[in-house]
């Protein structure tokens, strides 16, 4: 437990003190949120604007979580490998999985902090949410699933891409491309048919749609993401991504060059 906690504290302190991480994970989604909420609601009926803004706020919260998991996490892994930290850790009585758990929890905490900032900005910009009661913990559950799935992708990137700069750019590119293709930035029913299928399978998109469905309402999404089959698929694929990332990282992440 002490080793996990040590990795967690180190990871969290590094994240909140590094200006580049703060910008990409915290400020970038906020900047996008401000731009899209002020520019893309021109054709929307006045009474629907607060809900569109709420939907966009959720999108940007999820985007912040994706950036933390897919870019910040692999960048940290690649830097630690390059700087010899993994060589040092391999010489110590610590198992990679403990370091991995600490890292993922640190990234998760940092991602939730970034998402909270986005949420506050969303409120300040006039976002209005309708969900209450049990919908809120359910939405938080889906938010946690996006962290797990993003961290899984991040562990895969961090393990396979050895250069820090390569890990950062690959992570950002994958986050942005997958978000755009799967309807994180736009309602799923506006996507072409094949991408609508992808949006339902890609767990981060379906989790995000579920959060919007729970907190903003069914009108804001193109399908019902809360059917038992769809929820099971989202949970299973989120954990599957995390499992693949964990196995890869445990086997190859600390391997010396």
């Amino acid at each position, binding site marked *: 437990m002490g080793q996990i906690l040590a990795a967690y504290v180190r990871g969290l302190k590094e994240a909140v003190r590094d200006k580049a991480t703060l910008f990409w994970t915290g400020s970038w989604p906020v900047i996008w949120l401000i731009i899209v909420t002020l520019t893309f609601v021109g054709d929307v009926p006045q009474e629907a604007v607060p809900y569109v803004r709420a939907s966009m706020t959720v999108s940007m919260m999820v985007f912040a979580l994706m950036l933390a998991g897919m870019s910040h996490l692999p960048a940290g892994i690649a830097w630690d490998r390059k700087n*010899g930290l993994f060589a040092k850790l391999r*010489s110590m*009585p610590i198992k990679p999985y403990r370091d991995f758990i600490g890292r993922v929890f640190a990234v998760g905490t940092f991602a939730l902090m970034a998402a909270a900032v986005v949420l506050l900005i969303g409120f300040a910009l006039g976002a209005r949410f309708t969900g209450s009661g049990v919908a809120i913990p359910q939405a938080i559950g889906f938010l946690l699933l996006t962290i797990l799935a993003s961290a899984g992708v991040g562990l895969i990137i961090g393990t396979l891409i050895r250069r820090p700069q390569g890990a950062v750019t690959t992570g950002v590119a994958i986050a942005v491309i997958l978000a755009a293709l799967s309807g994180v930035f736009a309602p799923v029913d506006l996507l072409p048919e094949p991408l609508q299928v992808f949006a339902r399978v890609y767990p981060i998109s379906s989790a995000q749609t579920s959060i919007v469905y729970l907190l903003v309402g069914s009108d804001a999404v193109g399908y019902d993401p809360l059917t038992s089959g769809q929820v099971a698929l989202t949970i299973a694929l989120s954990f599957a991504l995390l499992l693949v990332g964990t196995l890869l990282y445990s086997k190859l992440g600390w391997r010396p060059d």
Partner: protein
Amino acid sequence: MSAIRVADLVKTYGGRRVLDGVDLDIQEGEFYALMGPNGSGKTTLASIIASVRTQDSGVVVVHGKPPALARGLIGYVPQENFSSTELSGKENLTYFARLLGYSRRQAEQLTVEMLQKVGLYQDPGKRVGKYSGGMRKRLEVATAMFPGIRVLILDEPTTGLDPGARRSFFGMLQEKVDKNTTILLVTHIGSDAELASRVGLIDNGRIIAEGTPEELKRKYAVEDAITVETAAKTEGVVSVLKGFDVGGEVAELEAGYRVYSRNGDRVLADVVRTLDQAGHKVLRIEMGRPTLEDVFFRLTQKTLQEVTG
């Protein structure tokens, strides 16, 4: 009692034998320097002993156990700066103490002690990103000095240290040796290796000579080393200098040349005169007692700088 024992160790990368049957026996409480140029296999050897890498064949034992089972006894400091620049010295040390299994309270207590030991306690909250190279290296060495660690493996720890930092660094190591800690220092700097109680010279994955610094110098470099710097480095200078070297060989240095003579005191003036008569202006000439770098040159006909650079 052996602290580190290595027998017939082989490691191959991409078909190249980086370690080619290495044997090594380092006693408990000994300060052993492994000296060789880049690519000689010394870092690979150290990292196998530290359980960072595994060997293809051969035996490695640390305090009677395979390295992977002796991790709690090994303090390894790799060549790279692995401490986090976003954390303070205190936070970095606390992190490593917690990884070693100390409770939060014990870790904080130990961290204060360690920072005092390495002379970094004045500003424990200062971020490592603002440390000088010497401060950072001392902090990283401190991560390998927690109680219970009996073997310290340091890979090129003095690179980038100024003379003052280097002096205090070796003072710190001497204290550990006095407390019976075994030190394996990996270096390509002869003056660092001179401070060890025993030195192993490694080249092309093999230990080519071993002994105390004095033994090695007595055995392999009995001649005085004459270093000459001329206005221009030319074939003419080399051909003049060849006549003064015991073996007719001239080592080319970054600035100038080096030859070896059994009676350096007497030939020094002759070297200057002969070069002058041949039209080569001498900018600097000096004679030194043989060093471990000279020993390495004698054995391999290569200078450490030449191979390293």
